[in-house]
């Protein structure tokens, strides 16, 4: 369950990074469609956080401990929205670069989460 969500969030995050990276390449700021994409990725990360809470409450223990596990889950939920708000203040290609970097950061967090959960 959690592994499947981790893979889904990683794929979505990398797709978002590529999409916004392409916008930056074309010298464009983030647009409405990009923000919808960010919302989708953020909702997926939120679902992952809820799934993590349910699994740990149900008695499963993450390999590296639940403190680190939840710290990474919360970080994963926050990374893309914060990048999105920053891109709102910077209506140039560099706003798109920030969101692309946010997607890459989220993907890295997911790889770590996979190890933290499974060992």
């Amino acid at each position, binding site marked *: 369950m959690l592994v499947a969500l981790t893979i889904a969030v990683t794929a979505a995050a990398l797709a978002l990074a590529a999409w916004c990276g392409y916008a930056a390449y074309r010298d464009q700021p983030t647009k409405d469609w990009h923000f919808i994409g960010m919302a989708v990725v953020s909702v997926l990360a939120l679902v992952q956080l809820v799934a993590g809470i349910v699994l740990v409450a149900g008695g499963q223990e993450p390999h590296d401990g639940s403190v680190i596990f939840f710290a990474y889950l919360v*970080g994963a939920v926050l990374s893309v929205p914060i*990048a999105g708000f920053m891109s709102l203040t*910077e*209506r140039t290609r*560099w*706003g798109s*670069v*920030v969101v692309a*970097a946010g997607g890459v*950061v989220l993907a890295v967090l997911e790889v770590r989460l996979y190890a933290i959960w499974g060992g």
Partner: protein
Amino acid sequence: MEEDGTDVTAQTTGQGGKTARQAGADGGPGKKARLVSGPGLVLVWLYGVMTVGAASRSVYQIVSDYGRAPLAYSLSAVAAVVYVFITYTLVRGGETARKVALVCCALELVGVLTVGTWTLVDPSAFPDATVWSDYGMGYIFIPVALPVTGMLWLRKPRTAASAAAAA
């Protein structure tokens, strides 16, 4: 939109008066030289990420099991403090902040290179990794790339006008 961003910065730092004074010193027309516009925003985002990463990591390690690798955990805490400070100066903006941040980036680079070399030469001193181990390999080498990028970005003094042009 640009104006909104500037206003928000001024409000959150709560230094409206100082902002105006510094803007005068920077030669800007009533506007503080922003360090976080254009490429600078990407820089502050990555510094912010490293701040959260290094700070939460070192707090957790020091609180949970400091005895295991005191040197490594202390060095991670130093890295966290450096990241916090540079992020703050970048967000604050202005000419003084630019110079301070430039010096801190240089110190950060020295720190990354020193700790990176140290971990390779004497691995036995480090039972656990620091943020700057192996030149920041655990953080896809962002720790060694950031200060170099930062120094390039902060190298020249700027007015509000040139910062806007750069963006």
